[in-house]
């Protein structure tokens, strides 16, 4: 059993020559075998391997923990097809605790439309039972949806289901499963409910995967987006008493590569004391993106249709983000030069008691817009203490490190800050990495974090060349998620730094698969 890719709680696994998630009874060489005696649960067949299923849940209240029925190789979530969303989420949340990482998770008789979401939440096995019954009732499966069709057949639905699962697997491999889930949720109330209730679970235990987010109506609940908005709580501006400058986002990411932001930059850098301006971009669904964070995922990796219309959800979200940024305590004043969002942001800032200058420019990057920006900045910067390039870089590094590592950033900030944003360095401990979009830890940096209680992977003592695989992992310390930076320890010594590619329990339990993508070796 080898995990090939992760997204959310979902895994693309390779085992016995097949890949999961798959649908038993729909795909070649994968099927359910009938029970031999009443209630024994039967078995399933994957290729030539036969795996026993746990016995039927006779007399069991499936709404009470333990939620899963277990056999050696399979964990079954009985009632998954009908449980109400919260109940189903409670059971899914308990999955790894009850079943560990080496059992396949099977949800019997669920609707095809729910399969992308359930796969995203960690389910490995589905079946063709519902699709067969739909066939008998005259419905054909098409892209996860039921189409009335007198010619529908059980065999046809099995084949369509196999195609649907192939689509789920390729989406998972590409990191686009979330998109497929959002798409099914749009027109399926049950999936929408389940997706809504799974936000917290995904944000706390889901894998972080730095793929582009093509934002839609449901992207406000994307775990990376939610996490981003929360991370603003850990952020501090480079220095106290700066002037906050709110600018519009750009289609090109990161923003400072865009034509509009280059024009802004050329305008600003001509001003005296322009380093005391703190640029924060205004965008949906992320909300606010301080300049020093704009290379991070997802700020540098999303795309959204811009309409100039801000709905009530977005309005509320900006309010919440300003609450997290606390501009009234941290900035001397604010300039709003954010195009269509200007009015609502100025209003929100004033509600918080911030002195606001509005440029009033409808087209912020036009000649007139830039003129208005220049004038507003000159006015706002009058009387503001000047900020040196060095102090500013130190402040930017601190803000970025705190967002990336939270409380663990402290030992890193003891190092001298070198270079200028975006190419900042924390001497000896971390360097800017375009792949990470922020600081990549060196071995010394990872060791400093580990000493402060940061995440450590204990590996067997062998010469580490290239990446660390699950077979070599002995244990883990500290908390981390798939996608976060970790230290590798061998024989009591930190020997490498890298990015975790499995969840903590998973890399200990698994015998195959990439556990840590090693980026720096001692």
């Amino acid at each position, binding site marked *: 059993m080898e995990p090939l890719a992760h997204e959310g709680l979902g895994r693309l696994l390779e085992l016995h020559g097949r890949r999961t998630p798959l649908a038993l009874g729909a795909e070649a060489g994968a099927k359910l075998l009938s029970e031999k005696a009443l209630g024994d649960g039967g078995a399933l067949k994957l290729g030539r391997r036969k795996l026993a299923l746990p016995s039927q849940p006779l*007399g069991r209240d499936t709404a009470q923990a333990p939620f899963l029925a277990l056999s050696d190789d399979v964990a079954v979530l*009985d009632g998954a097809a009908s449980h109400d969303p919260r109940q189903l989420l409670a059971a899914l949340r308990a999955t790894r605790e009850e079943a560990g990482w080496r059992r396949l998770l099977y949800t019997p008789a669920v609707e095809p439309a729910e399969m992308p979401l359930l796969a995203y939440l960690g389910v490995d096995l589905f079946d063709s039972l519902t699709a067969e019954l739909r066939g008998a009732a005259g419905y054909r499966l098409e892209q996860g949806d039921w189409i009335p069709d007198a010619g529908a057949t059980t065999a046809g639905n099995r084949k369509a289901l196999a195609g649907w699962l192939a689509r789920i697997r390729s989406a998972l491999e590409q990191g686009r499963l979330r998109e497929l889930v959002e798409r099914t949720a749009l027109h399926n109330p049950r999936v929408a409910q389940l997706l809504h209730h799974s936000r917290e679970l995904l944000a706390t235990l889901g894998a972080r995967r730095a793929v582009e987010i093509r934002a839609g109506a449901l992207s406000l609940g994307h775990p990376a987006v939610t996490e981003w908005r929360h991370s603003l709580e850990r952020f501090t501006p480079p220095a106290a008493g700066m002037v906050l400058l709110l600018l519009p986002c750009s289609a090109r990411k990161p923003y400072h590569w865009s034509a509009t932001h280059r024009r802004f930059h050329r305008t600003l850098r001509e001003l005296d004391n322009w380093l005391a301006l703190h640029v924060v971009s205004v965008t949906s669904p992320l909300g606010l993106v301080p300049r020093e964070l704009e290379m991070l995922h997802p700020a540098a990796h999303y795309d959204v249709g811009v309409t100039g219309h801000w709905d009530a959800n977005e309005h509320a979200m900006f309010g919440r983000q300003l609450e997290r940024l606390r501009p009234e305590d941290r900035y001397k004043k604010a300039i709003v030069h954010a195009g269509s969002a200007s009015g609502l942001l100025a209003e929100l800032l004033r509600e918080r008691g911030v002195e606001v200058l509005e440029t009033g420019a409808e087209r912020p990057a036009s000649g007139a817009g830039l003129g208005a920006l220049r004038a507003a900045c000159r006015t706002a910067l009058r009387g503001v203490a000047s900020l040196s390039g060095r102090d500013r870089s130190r402040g930017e590094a601190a803000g970025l490190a705190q967002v990336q590592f939270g409380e663990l950033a402290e030992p890193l900030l003891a190092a001298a800050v070198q270079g200028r944003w975006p190419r900042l360095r924390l001497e000896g401990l971390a360097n800017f990495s375009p792949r990470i979009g922020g600081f990549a830890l060196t071995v010394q940096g990872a060791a400093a974090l580990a000493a402060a209680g940061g995440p450590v992977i204990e590996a067997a003592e062998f010469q580490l060349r290239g990446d660390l695989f699950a077979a070599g992992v002995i244990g883990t310390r500290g908390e981390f998620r798939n996608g976060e930076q970790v230290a590798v320890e061998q024989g009591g010594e930190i020997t490498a730094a890298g990015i975790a590619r499995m969840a903590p329990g998973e890399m200990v339990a698994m015998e195959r698969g990439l556990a840590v993508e090693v980026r720096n070796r001692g």
Partner: protein
Amino acid sequence: MADAFAEFVNAAKQEPAAHPLDQPVATWTEREVLDGEQVEAGVAILRTRGCYWSIREGCAMCGYFNDTVPGGVSTEALQAQWAQVLPRLAGKRYAKIYTSGSFLDPTEVPLDFAAQAMAEMHAAGVEKVLVESLPEFVHARHMDYGAAPALEVAIGLESATPLVLDKCVNKRLKWDGFTRACANAHTAGASVKAYVLLKPPFLNEAQAIDDAVASIERAAPHVDKVSLNPVNVQRNTVVERLFRRGEWSAPWLWSVVEVLRRTRECGVRVYSDPTGGGTQRGAHNCGECDQALLDGLTAHRLGGPLPAAACDCRGRWKALLAQGGVRRDGAEPWGYRRGFRGGRRF
């Protein structure tokens, strides 16, 4: 796990509402067959303390405790109830006297009250009386009435499969106990009717049919007739919880007919009068063919042939049965029986 099941059963129960003690739960008349002849039978349900087992744990499908009085009903109150029941049995040759428990349990129905009731029915010309009892109370000393109509004792076998009794029904009944009760009844001159469940909770449709057929075939040599009882949804039971959650649905009427068809040669009369038939809470089909089948079952119960009807939904029923070996519970997709017509759910 048996304990967890008992907890599940108890968690589903609720304290019964307060009931008037001097009124029977219900009385009605229905068509029955007596000695090969159709007669009008008088039926009454007396309000009693109820089944002792339901007070301790109870069975997963049984909501009769809802009609009982936990503190017990005095003999005077029983007599007051009986005074209302007796006139309604006038001119009836067949009577069915139910309690929400065991008529033969002397702690539920005192023996002297039972003897008095039997004597009065005998005097009123009733030829045969049906009472129900758990097998543990079926003993000559509990049926020692003196002058009484012929007695028919109905015993809930439910299933002859220990696993089903233990994990699906929560009934502590041993096969030996059942056959001993049948023998005791016969010795005391009574005839025996067995109740067999169709689709206890947790079983899927195909398992339910197989289990009912096997149970009837095994019970037939020991009894005089068998009533096949498709499980219906009674209030405050495990079945109701599973029904509400969509983890179990009441059996199809096709399944009822199928069990009757497969047990035609078993040697005793087997029939079914589905409680709540044709509704979501009782045995039902697609809604189109339900009434025809229910009428057919009634005719069959009164001596007619097995109902024969054709309907589109039979194909869907067969498709569901084909999954019998791999389906882990008694559920099916919402709206399946009516072919997902009239509203859509995913």
